[in-house]
């Protein structure tokens, strides 16, 4: 019998910042909303994140970035997922993101930006209504 389709989400912490309370809170909230959440742990390179996304076959990649380097990191990620042929996966970004950078991130290809302080329900609703399986 066919099981119900479930969203699988990667929550990844790229680069040098060592704060993952926010990422874990989001991960926990997504779990409680019925999603399967893979957490990467701290200090991940883009190569590692993309590798995890491939092996785990997640539907969506969430980056938590607090270092201010969200633009170059996101650019590198999109470059890499194209190379690996998984640019069908959606990408969202959270963390410390100034609102003036949001248009630029969207231009790079990010589908949703959720800076610190975004109600968890908003992130959940966005993922459930936007992300497609497979």
């Amino acid at each position, binding site marked *: *019998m*066919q*099981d*119900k*389709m*479930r969203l*699988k989400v990667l929550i990844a912490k790229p680069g040098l910042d060592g704060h993952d309370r926010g990422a874990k809170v989001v*991960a*926990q909230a*997504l*779990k*409680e*909303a*019925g*999603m*399967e*959440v*893979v*957490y*990467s*742990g701290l200090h991940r390179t883009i190569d*590692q994140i993309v590798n*995890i996304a*491939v*092996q*785990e*076959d997640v539907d969506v990649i969430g980056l938590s970035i607090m270092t201010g380097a969200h633009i170059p990191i996101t650019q590198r990620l999109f470059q890499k997922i194209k190379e*690996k*042929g*998984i640019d069908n996966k959606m990408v969202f970004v959270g963390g410390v993101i100034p609102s003036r950078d949001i248009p630029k991130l969207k231009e790079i290809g990010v589908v949703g930006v959720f800076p610190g302080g975004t109600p968890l329900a908003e992130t959940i609703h966005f993922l459930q209504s936007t992300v497609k399986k*497979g």
Partner: protein
Amino acid sequence: MELVKKVLHGDEGSAARLISMIEEGLDEGYEAVSLLFPHTGKAHVIGVTGAPGAGKSTIVDKLAVSYGRQGEKVGIIAVDPTSAKGSGAFLGDRVRMRDAEKVKGIFIRSMAHRGFPGGVAKATLGAAYVLDGLGKEIILIESVGAGQTEIQISMICDSVITVLTPDYGDELQLLKAGLIEIGDIVVMNKMDKPGAAEAAEDIEFYLMNRKNQPWQTPVLTMEARKGKGVERLVEALGEHHKYTEGDVQGKSAKKEKTKQLVMALFKEEAWSAIMKSILGKTDFEVIMQKAQDGTIDPYRAVRMALRIALPGSGKMEENYAR
């Protein structure tokens, strides 16, 4: 099937996709498994079970590194529990497998157990076939770690390691523990903790009653975080693999495992099919209503429901049907 061909040629993305299809219970996923199956059986599938916090992830991490050094191709399937309240899961085993991730050509997959009893997911076996087909020679399966009822992991693995710590509980716990029964190798981890040597001795003593069995379950001591005892564990796994492959009794044990496995999977599928056939049926709702009102007892309700689900069963209930 194209996907199966790609997996056999070592394409990681296809393997990952196929595992998801098996997890979703898609027919194409099971068809792919059937095509893949003749190409499997080469890998040594090793299960690691034990209570939460016993050190399973760390041991899997160290084993992967050790096998990687020997030039073996390694795959890992890490199973975490699905939330009891919903369908979600937090899959965090990768965080403790950072050394394993550096092993060349390693494939790591996290998996939520989705309520399947026995410490693994229904799709775990299928995922092991996929990794085998992908060319992995060592496949490490980390179980949920729920404790005493992890039977299924032994059905899908060639060798099972039970990980204990000095605070596993008193001897009574041991005597009723299914966990030790399913271990082909028992590891006493965290040997730096007080009382560790005594705890290891207790387990040796407990296992002595099984002296006349063809495979002697060794009790190994480890401090996994520091990498102490890993080599000996790898050695013991090699010995056990040789036993299951070569020994007549090892082979018959394998047959028994397969039988149990088919029964367990059958139970799961049959259960789903039966539920599907009765949920929402008026007859069933009437029975449930009666049970809820207290006009019939729960045993009788179940027997009546069974008659609806499986016509021809429960002949005795015909007396009730008046």
